[in-house]
Structures are given as C-alpha cells and as structure tokens.
C-alpha cells in the first residue's frame, strides 16, 4: 500500500508534474462539459475538424516565435476561434453539404500545418507534441492561461445553461421565445474553439475529438439528466487525465494517447456493463 502511495506521491515533488496534474484535470473537466453539447448536437466531426484546423496557426506561431512554447496558446486560440466561425459560416451556405465542406477545410488546413512544421529541422519531436500532446511540458505561464480561459468557458456554459439547453433541444421553441439563436449557436462554436486551444498542449490536436466526445458519451450511457451527465463526464475525463499523466511519467507514453486510451477504456467498460444489464 505504501509503495503504491509512494508511486503516486513521489513524482508530485517535481514542479512539472504538479503543473501536469492541474493541466490534466482542468482539460478533462472543460472538454467533458463542453463535449456534452458536442455529443448532444452531433458535432463530433466539427470538433475533430476544428482541432486539426488549428495546426497551421500553431505551426506558424512556432516559426515566428522561434520555437518558444508560451505564445503558441495565443496562436492556437486565434486560429481555432477564426476556424470555428469560418466553418460555421460555410456550413450554413447550402451549396455544399455540411460534412463535405468540413472535410475539405479540415484536411487542407491540417496538410498546411504539417507542411509548415516539416520545414523545421527538429520536426519529428515537435510535430509529435502538437499532434499528441505533452502534458509534462506545460509551463506555469501556459497553465495560468489555460486556467483563465478554461474557467471562462465553464462560467459561460453555466451562465447560459438554460439558453444552450433550449437551443439544443428545441430550436423552434428558442425562436418563439425570441432567443438570439444564431448568436448563441456561434457562441457555442467559439466555446468549443477555446476548449480546443486550452487542451492543445495536453492532448494534442489529433486526438482532441476523443476528449470532447468519449467522456460525454460514456456519461450519456449512465444518466438521462444533463447536469449529471456533465458532472459524470467531467469526473471520468479528469480521472483519465490523471491516469494518462502517470502513464506519461512512468512509461514515457505520449500524454494524449495515454489519456484518450484511458477514456476509451472507461467507455468500453460502461458500454459492455450496460449491455450486460439489459
């Protein structure tokens, strides 16, 4: 028992590990709460595309700042907010089907990002961090930004809880109650974009969609009430974050993969358990 506690506690004497712990839990909570709406509104593909779309922005920032990590948050934030509103606008024009339009933008932007990064000499290592995350490399300044913006996302979700619930469940009712439905839809897109930027360093862009979708989907199998779904999803996601953090520390597994694998395992267990019960 003491060895297990030692095993868990000892790494936390390192400052980078403490930061990683806070980052993993924070990202888990924010992703899961926002992800509840991603799941309920069938926006998984949008979330996936959005995460991939911010790669060229981050890559450009990486070149401009000469490899420094801190400014990347701002590049990620700017790119993902622009991309979310851009994708939102394009999908509203009826010329091309929504998923096709998203697919084109997503792959094109991702390719551009890879192209930019590949011009840098140390590209294999850096690319892997962008794609799959590096929770052990989160700096204190990055962490402060993540906490501010992640907290802001949660605050807005709470403040507009009844409005987001209504536009998601019954857009026609929302319009008869004269809610600014388009504005709220765009606000939700921006919140997803901010979430993606906040989570980029912890889970990476390639696996981001899993953090948005998997914990919320797992929770949806366990409860049929939205507030419980959010709390359950957030708990499972932050637990996944913690397990991923230790896997990263002890076995050198890329943090994004470790976190996502844990979340997926949760889902499989719950899914099979529910099936067994029925």
């Amino acid at each position, binding site marked *: 028992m003491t060895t297990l506690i030692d095993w868990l506690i000892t790494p936390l004497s390192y400052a980078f590990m403490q930061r990683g712990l806070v980052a993993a839990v924070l990202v888990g909570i924010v992703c899961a709460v926002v992800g509840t709406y991603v799941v*309920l509104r069938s926006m998984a593909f949008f979330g996936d595309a959005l995460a991939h779309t911010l790669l060229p922005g981050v890559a450009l920032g990486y070149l401009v700042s000469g490899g420094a990590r801190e400014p990347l948050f701002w590049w990620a934030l700017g790119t993902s907010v622009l991309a979310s509103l851009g994708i939102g606008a394009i999908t509203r024009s009826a010329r091309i089907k929504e998923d096709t339009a998203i697919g084109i933008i997503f792959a094109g932007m991702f390719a551009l990002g890879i192209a930019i990064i590949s011009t840098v000499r140390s590209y294999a290592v850096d690319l892997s961090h962008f794609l799959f995350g590096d929770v052990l490399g989160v700096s204190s300044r990055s962490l402060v930004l993540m906490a501010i913006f992640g907290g802001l996302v949660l605050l807005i979700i709470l*403040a507009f809880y*009844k*409005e987001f*619930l*209504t536009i*998601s*469940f*019954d857009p*026609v*009712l929302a*319009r*008869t*109650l*004269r*809610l*600014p439905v388009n504005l709220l839809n765009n606000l939700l897109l921006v919140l997803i974009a901010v979430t993606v930027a906040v989570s980029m360093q912890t889970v990476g862009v390639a696996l981001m969609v899993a953090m948005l979708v998997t914990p919320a989907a797992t929770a*949806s199998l366990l*409860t*049929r*009430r*939205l507030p419980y*779904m959010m709390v359950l999803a957030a708990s499972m996601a932050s637990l996944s974050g913690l397990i991923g953090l230790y896997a990263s520390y002890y076995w050198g597994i890329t943090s994004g993969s470790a976190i996502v694998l844990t979340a997926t395992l949760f889902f499989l267990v719950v899914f099979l358990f529910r099936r067994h019960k029925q």
Partner: protein
Amino acid sequence: MYPHTDHQTDQPVLDVRGLNVRYDGRSALEEITFHLHAGERVAVVGPNGAGKSTLFKVVAGVLTPDRGEVRVYGSGPGGHVCIGYVPQRSQVDWHFPVSVADVVMMGRIAKLGWLGWPRKRDWELVRGALATVGMSALFGRQIGELSGGQQQRMFIARALAQEAELMLMDEPLTGLDTPSQEALLALLGELQRKGVTVMVATHDLQQAAVYFDRVMLLNRRIVAFGPAGQVLQPEVLVQAYGNRLRVANGGTIAVMDTCCEGDEHDHAH
C-alpha cells in the same frame, strides 16, 4: 434581448394579411388573410403539402414571409413571447437527457431573462401546467419514457408555463390512439376556459367538425374558413383535396392522402 411587446387588447389576437411565402423556389402560401378572436379554437385542415406547418411557423415568427404581415395583439410576432408552438412529435429528439419538468420549465426562460434561474413562482407555474394536463405524477420522468399522448400533453404544459395566449399545434393528434386523442381534445376545452386561442393542424375532418369553433381549409391559399358545417361540404372540400376526396353512399366523406405518412384515411360526415 428577450424582447417584450405590450398587448393592445382591443386588437385581434391574430391578424394575418396578404401573406405570401415561397419555399425552395415554389409557392408555399399565397394571399393568406384571416383573423382570430381571443379564446377561439380553430382547426386547420388540408392535404399534405398544403402549407399548414409553414403557416404556423410564420405566425409563430420563426419564418419570415416574403410578403404580407402577421400581427399579434396589434404588433408583429417577433416581439411576442406569448405564442406557444407545439412541434410535431417526429421533430423531437426523445433521447435528449431532460426530464418532463426540464422541458416544461423551458417555457419559462423568456420570463426568467438573462442569467435568471427559476424561482418559486416558476416552479409553481410548471407544477400547475403539469396538473392541468394531468401529468403531475410524471414530473421527473425522462421524456423518452412517455407515451405519445403524454409527449403531446407535455408540450401543451410547456406552452401553458410559457403563459401562451396563442397556441399553435402541428398535427398533435397524428399517431395517437383513440383514448389519447380524446384526452387531448378534452384539454382543448380546458384551454378555452383559460382564454387561450388555439390553432390545430389536423388530418381528421370529423374531429375538426366536432371540437373546433371554426375550420380553415388550406391548400396554399385559404379555400374556405368558417363554421364546420359550411366548410366541410363535398363541393368545398373537393377544391382542396381534388381527386383524393371520396364521397361514399350516405354522405360519408373520406380523404385519401397519398403522400408520405403511410395510409392516412380521414373521415367526416
């Protein structure tokens, strides 16, 4: 935001003039003009594709007409939160993680305002609305567990909680068994006692004749609008339904809708 327009009570509940709506390049509604008085119960009948849903959405202020105007108590529908829209059941995601009370409380959100949370009075209105539709016991029930009739009554409760004065119901009777239909129709009388004006789209000409004060026969334009006895006559109905109308021996009228929702056979005497 959350606009609130005062009612001019000397004006009709609903006053629609010269409404024209085009949808996907074809005409959906042409020159619709009518008005409703407070507490009236109006059935809107007509073949599939006649524009019933479109008319309701324009009246609710959800869809903007190409021409013409809608006035609710003397002003455009966009400023009013007193219009309750009861959707077709097929348009709702019944797996959504909300309870009956959650859905009914949604009717209150315009009154709660931004950053407002439900207070005691809101919960009282929600409970009262559920009691009116006979669903008090289902307060905390997940919506996916409701029967068809209960689903429909929950939406009426939501419109009541919204304190709707004009209620638009899009085919609320479709797909319900006879007892559920009767419970719902009985509820219409209850709404009238509360002074709520009701417009119901329906396929059932017989129910339209029995339970409603006036019947609007719609086929992109208003073919006829008046008491059931005048509107539901073979020579009038044939103008809307054409060769889908069958008049059997003994004067029984049957309408065959050949469109989308399986075999619909609606009857009237």
